[in-house]
């Protein structure tokens, strides 16, 4: 799944996809079979994915969607939509 999405901008991936691709890039770099230029390209992609992951975590605000029923308000569950 990450292979098919490897070309997408890091920001467009889900957190899990970005992390999975990041870890596969790390593994292929560590594997050491890439030439210098592809290594640098992989590194740059890796840094982009890393930033996207960190941004997703930093900006994450929980979304709650109610399909059925009506939720009781709970003082701890401020943001319900």
């Amino acid at each position, binding site marked *: 799944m990450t292979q098919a999405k490897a070309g997408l901008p890091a920001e467009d991936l889900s957190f*899990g996809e970005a992390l999975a691709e990041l870890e596969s890039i790390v593994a292929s770099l*560590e594997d*050491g079979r890439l030439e210098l230029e592809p290594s640098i390209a992989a590194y740059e992609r890796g840094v982009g994915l*890393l930033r996207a992951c960190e941004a997703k975590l930093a900006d994450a605000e929980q979304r709650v969607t109610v399909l059925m029923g009506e939720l*009781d308000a709970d003082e701890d569950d401020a943001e319900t939509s």
Partner: protein
Amino acid sequence: MAEARPEAVSVSRAMALAKGALERVSARVVGEVTELADKPGYKAVYFTLGDESANMPCLVWRDAYEASGVALRLGSLVEVGGSFTAYAPKGRLQFQVRTLAPAGEGVLRLQVAALARRLEAEGLMREDRKRPLPAFPRRVGLVTSPRGKAVHDVIRTLRRRYPCAEVVVAGVPVEGPGAVSSIVAGLRRMAEEPGVDVVILARGGGSYEDLMPFNAEEVARAVAAMPMPVVTGIGHEPDTSVADMVADLRASTPTAAAEAVAPSLDEVAARLAGARARLARALEHVAQRARHRVQLLATRPLFQEAAVLLAPFGLSLDSGRESLERSLPGMVSARRDRTLRARGAMLRLGGHITERRAGRLAPAAAQLEALSPLAVLGRGYALCTDETGARVLTDAGATTVGERVKVRLRRGALGCRVETTEVEA
């Protein structure tokens, strides 16, 4: 006269006799609660058990009631153990309850166990049916009561651990009539919702009876049919519901289910930090390897001494020359003979001509010699020309710094580069 008939007794005495007789009657009785008086401050809880044709007033001392763990409710079926007694002041018959348990539970448990066996035989509980949970869910489905603690426990836990995940709630009644079809409807709705990659089926604690909807075959089959993994968080330890058995993962409480579904933010942050360090290290290794390879190449003889590069060409030139030399001599000696003969003839002829001219040539040659600029060089002067030797330099201003010039001496020449120019005005 009085010997045949028992003596009349007081009401108190009569009730005491009855009480004594009743208290010898112990029984275990199953019935439905038809009246209930559970008043704070009273030493006992009073209730009536009934069936289609009879009612039986009961009392249970508060200690025994609380120890039983049963919450009496109108309409619930209970099994009581104890003995009859009489309450003299009101002239009432009562059953004094010593043990109290939900009734029908045994029957229910048997039914549940039979269903569990049946579904197990169908393979719905096989380990290989249990799917792994997504490591990083994007949308977490939650099927539970919209009221009460469970829904908020799950939402709060997901927010604390992994706020990236959206929570999609199907709030459905999870007890009482209609609970089974509501839970099934909630699960089906969730199955159709795009992007939901794991579902939590939860409820808070309750009695065994309260748990019954989660033991229903319809709910169990709906759970088994879900296209994504289902985690149950049905707070009813130590009982395991049939829904728990067919779920992909069983957690003990709603909170535990949420914890099972979401990665912890700390773990995620640690993984990211690890990836960051490994990424930098890996690139450094790649760069080091590349540098090392370049260094290895740079120390190869090829780059140390250019002659090595040309050696193969030199060799083939040499062999070409050799074969040329081998083929030449015959040709050369033949021509040489002819040339020598021609030269002899020419000398004989030419001798006459040159002798005549020599007398005139010699003084002209001496004159020429004196005029030649080359003769001046013999006296220590030098001749400066451009690099090709075609143009004699006469003006420092006509050269530029860095230009190559040629300096001819009496014997040989120097290749020079102009360092400075001094132009005379």
